[in-house]
């Protein structure tokens, strides 16, 4: 019988075994860190202090102490804390202390997911019980049974919820929550960094509504935010809450020794610079670890990748561990399914989990020893969050980042200094995005009438109120605007998905037992749920048999095939209005509003192991129109000195590389910002490259690109120059441009854009 390897044996093997060693481009060790602690604050209630001592807490970490002092002084804070640094005490301690002093005090905790809320409820309740306090804390979400809802509303000191519930269930029914709103002293916003982009812009408006209702009941709560490391936690917190904030970043928590390994899969096609797929390499590494029962989490960037890896891994260790020992975890699974997985991880029944970034958040899944990232997660902040999943409880741990062939991954993996040295990304939100704003002004008007001249957060509402009165949603009487419609506006606004209606996925494999297995936003559905698409759910393949676009339903049936599908999106773009512009010589950079027409065109069937194209078909779906903000850069065609076709290929290549680098600057998912080249842009007839926000109205991503255009161009140029391929490869200019000069021409164009 073979003995199982321990993690340290595996680390040795990584260093010595050539099939691993050769692929390791960087090995970064982060030493353990000593704790920095302070005495418990003197004013802490005896019962609380003793409860903490019984749980082994005799002193506070420095950041917990600073948080306590600021909050007790009535200041709002944002605390920046890495995973497993005891951040919950930053808010639980001052909140509970205030409740001991005044039993009427109420607090609202907002977590981005239900899973996190459940976790936090257990945590705070343990402390309350230990201290023998008469304080009630409850979760209030879709899972809360109707029989206890009224108790939560009236008697909950700490109400733990999520932004969606706050938006659709609490605020529109605020009169049932008088006890909460009249006495609301604290609002806790955990995982602040999650509230960026579209979601963050929505949540900022939900908070505007929350504060408006608090004012109505005469309260003005202190906001306590906690965030993972991002470049602008203070700015984000202040933008989200419109409150002055204190930054707490003196982390005093200890951490265990961590090995951070950069792993670049071997090149298998030299001229094209094609590397072995990251998915295959991650599978190899994870398989090795799991066979030795070393608890491992594998992150993959998309739902599809999760499912592919899951299929691979379950097959691999089926006999040693049984198929249930490795599970998938991502959004789109139903809640009960997710709860079971979380529990299995905590109690050790599950050895491995393959996840999207859904598990980046602080759900307590216990101690995992190894984290494998299949591809760069897209941002430095995300990478550290994912890395924090390994070795939470101060033991030695290993993080392996397996690079894929895409340019951003290759850029990061070849620049460890950039990764370890530079500050992480900026989180951007745009609470004044008109579409988002108007939706929330409707919701706010439903909650309380608007007074003339009232500002909504920092936004002047007059023109929007008049517009809504014209649309007969509001009615003006005297100096107030009243809701005058039979609808319930919050039900028409989803905080999470870009488009407002989701497509429901229905499994009709068993005609007698048709069931809903998930849902997906409309824009993603165009390329993932078109007819004949292969949709994966918990490692099971389904083929889409019918997509009812009108009714937003996708009917799927279980299949067993050896390929997945990949769809193309064709895009047409028009400039509507130019808000900002700067020019130099023949170069023109601008920012403004655009209209985008997108249409899914064809899909390809791609074989699992070899990734070869084994078939294709058309997609028949209507065009989707998008009005959004965009940044663009143009030059005069004759200055390029290139033929029409070489110009086109060059632009295509440059756009591909730019599209991979751009997310670096704006902390977004690759799909949130799109890059589109045009040989002859409609508005100025010039060769132009556009960067547009995928969400209607924009959420500030393209504006940030406009501001830092030179930087983006510079880094992209560097990426292409350093790429080892001959005539362009997926890691730099992509494979869409199939001419020999594409790489050279893309570089030439980038240089010209930079004015060289």
């Amino acid at each position, binding site marked *: 019988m073979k003995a199982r390897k321990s993690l340290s044996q595996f680390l040795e093997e990584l260093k010595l075994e050539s099939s691993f060693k050769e692929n390791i481009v960087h090995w970064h060790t982060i030493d353990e860190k000593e704790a920095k602690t302070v005495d418990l604050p003197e004013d802490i209630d005896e019962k609380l202090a003793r409860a903490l001592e019984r749980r082994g807490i005799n002193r506070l970490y420095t950041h917990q102490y600073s948080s306590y002092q600021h909050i007790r002084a009535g200041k709002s804070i944002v605390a920046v804390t890495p995973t497993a640094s005891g951040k919950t005490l930053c808010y639980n301690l001052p909140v509970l202390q205030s409740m001991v002093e005044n039993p009427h005090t109420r607090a609202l905790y907002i977590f981005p997911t239900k899973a996190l809320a459940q976790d936090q409820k257990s945590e705070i309740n343990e402390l309350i019980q230990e201290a023998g306090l008469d304080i009630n804390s409850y979760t209030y979400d879709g899972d809360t049974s109707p029989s206890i809802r009224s108790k939560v509303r009236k008697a909950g000191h700490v109400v733990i919820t999520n932004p969606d519930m706050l938006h659709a269930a609490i605020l*529109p*029914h*605020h*009169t*049932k929550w*008088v006890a909460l709103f009249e006495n609301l002293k604290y609002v806790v916003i955990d995982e602040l960094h999650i509230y960026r982009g579209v979601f963050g812009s929505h949540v900022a408006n939900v908070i505007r509504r929350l504060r408006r209702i608090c004012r109505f009941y005469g309260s003005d709560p202190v906001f306590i935010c906690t965030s993972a490391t991002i470049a602008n936690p203070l700015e984000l917190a202040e933008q989200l809450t419109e409150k002055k904030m204190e930054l707490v970043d003196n982390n005093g928590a200890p951490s265990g020794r961590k090995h951070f390994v950069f792993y670049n899969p071997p090149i298998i096609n030299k001229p094209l610079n094609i590397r072995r797929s990251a998915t295959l390499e991650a599978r190899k590494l994870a398989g090795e670890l799991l066979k030795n029962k070393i608890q491992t989490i594998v992150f993959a960037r998309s739902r599809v990748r999760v499912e592919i890896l899951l299929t691979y891994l379950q097959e691999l260790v089926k006999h040693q561990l049984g198929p249930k020992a490795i599970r998938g975890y991502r959004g789109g699974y139903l809640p009960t399914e997710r709860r079971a997985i979380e529990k299995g991880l905590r109690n050790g029944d599950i050895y491995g989990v393959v996840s999207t970034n859904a598990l980046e958040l602080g759900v307590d899944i216990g101690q995992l020893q190894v984290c494998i990232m299949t591809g760069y997660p897209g941002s430095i902040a995300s990478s550290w969050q994912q890395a924090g999943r390994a070795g939470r409880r101060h033991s030695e741990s290993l993080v392996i980042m397996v690079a894929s062939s895409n340019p951003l991954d290759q850029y990061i993996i070849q620049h460890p200094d950039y990764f370890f040295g530079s500050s992480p990304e900026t989180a951007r939100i745009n609470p004044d995005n*008109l*579409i988002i704003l*108007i*939706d929330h002004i*409707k919701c706010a*008007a*439903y*909650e*309380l*009438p608007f007074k003339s001249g009232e500002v909504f957060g920092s936004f002047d509402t007059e*023109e*929007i109120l008049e*517009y809504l*009165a*014209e*649309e*007969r*949603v509001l*009615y*003006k*009487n*005297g*100096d*107030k605007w*009243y*809701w*005058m*419609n*039979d*609808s*319930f*506006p*919050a039900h*028409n*606004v989803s905080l999470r998905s870009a488009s*407002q209606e989701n497509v429901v996925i229905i499994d009709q494999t068993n005609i007698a037992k048709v069931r809903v297995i998930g849902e997906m936003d409309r824009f993603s559905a165009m390329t993932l749920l078109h007819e004949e698409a292969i949709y994966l759910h918990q490692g099971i393949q389904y083929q889409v048999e019918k997509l009812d676009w009108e009714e937003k339903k996708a009917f799927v049936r279980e299949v067993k095939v050896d390929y997945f599908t990949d769809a193309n999106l064709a895009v047409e773009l028009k400039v*509507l*209005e130019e808000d900002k512009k700067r020019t130099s010589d023949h170069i023109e950079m601008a920012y403004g*509003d655009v209209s985008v027409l997108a249409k899914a065109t064809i899909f390809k069937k791609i074989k699992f192991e070899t990734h070869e194209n084994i078939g294709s078909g058309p997609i028949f779906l209507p065009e989707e*129109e*998008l*009005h959004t903000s965009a940044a663009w850069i143009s030059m005069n065609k004759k200055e390029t000195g290139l033929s029409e076709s070489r110009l086109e290929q060059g632009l295509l290549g440059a756009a591909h590389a730019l599209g991979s680098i751009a997310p670096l600057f704006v902390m977004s998912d690759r799909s949130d910002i799109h890059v589109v080249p045009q040989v002859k842009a409609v508005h100025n007839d010039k060769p132009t490259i556009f960067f547009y926000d995928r969400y*209607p*109205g924009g959420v500030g991503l393209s504006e940030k690109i406009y501001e830092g255009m030179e930087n983006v161009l510079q880094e992209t140029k560097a990426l292409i120059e350093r790429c080892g391929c001959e005539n362009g490869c997926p890691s730099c200019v992509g494979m869409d441009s199939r001419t020999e000069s594409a790489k050279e021409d893309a570089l030439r164009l980038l240089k010209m854009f930079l004015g060289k």
Partner: protein
Amino acid sequence: MSSLRKKIDRMKTHLGSENAPENPPPSANRESGEKTRADIPFLEQWEKENVHPYFFDGEYCLVREKRFPLDLKHGKYRFSQFIDAVSAWHRSESSHPLSAKVFSPEDLFFFDIETTGLGGGTGNTIFLLGQASIEGDSVVLKQHFLPRPGAEVPLYQSFLESINYSTLVTYNGKSFDWPLVKTKHTLIREHLPRLPSFGHFDLFHAAKRLWKHKLERLKLSVVEEEVLGIKREHDIPGFLAPMIYFDFVERQNPEGIIAVMKHNETDILSLITLYIHLTFQLLGIDHKQTAKEIFEVGRWYAYLGETGRAAEAFSHAAESGGAASIEAKLALSRQLKKQQKWLEAVRLWKEVADGQQNDAAFQACIELAKFYEHKEKNIQNAILYAKKAETLLNKEWKMNHSEKNGRLSEEVQKRIQRLNRKILTL
């Protein structure tokens, strides 16, 4: 046009519209300051319909009042029978939740609202609060109407001045009407007296208990037609009320609203009839009660723990013959079993076991098997009935492979096996 406004227009395709305007928007914001009679459009027309303004705090609402003589018949009953119903409760010992034992007829008020939307959110506006009660020899109906959003203070002031009662009677008011009144009151509570607390008879729940078996939907209008013998003529359907109100706010013409008021009037008057009818059912005064209804009344008393009344109703229903009588016998036997009146219980079980209704016969056989096994210690007989139960279940199984039948079958098998073992050890 401002650039913000231009942007709004451009984004229109992405802005979900609640409804598309066809006409110019309502002419809002006409005037401010104290309102007088002169400010009320169509006042003459209103007053012709007995609708008069109520001024408060510089604003006004409209109030409609109407009296009906007690001998007026609405559906099956005259309003005067409401007084009989209250007296009947006085004579009764029952502590049924609908009992008016401690009230006089004038203490109750019948209540129903009309709103601009569904559900209990804060933005759902109540534009009509209707109430009725007994006053001397009349039923007095009073309706408080919101002439436009923003006039809530006089509306609720007028309403609060008119509700000096102890208990309200509604249809689904426990989950809809009253919580919404509380919500709207909370929004302007600093301008108003406190909202008093009331007892509450919600007749919807009663209707559900008694007529769920025969009515597919339990909307008040269905109960009116199917149970109370009330025919509505020229009635506007309730779901149109919000649209009629929006139209009124825009054009101020009372015509549509008066129709809504009449609809609300019928709703409220029907509550009186419904209360009379329910009382007569519950107290066994109605002699046209069906066996099934009597049975349901018995079930309700059983649920409330009033075993005597339950047994009375069950035996009454059991005498009727027909399907309901078998159910009633079974229910009655359970009451008897609780009271350990074995002899009578066994008699009923045997009747049911020999009857035509498989499901009931099956249950009776099981009861008999239990009785013979545990009480009589007559294992032979117990086996006899257990096997009879099995045969009955097998018949069922052929028609319906349900999960429940599967489970029952397993249980019967176990019972028979156990009995067989017992007989061997005897």
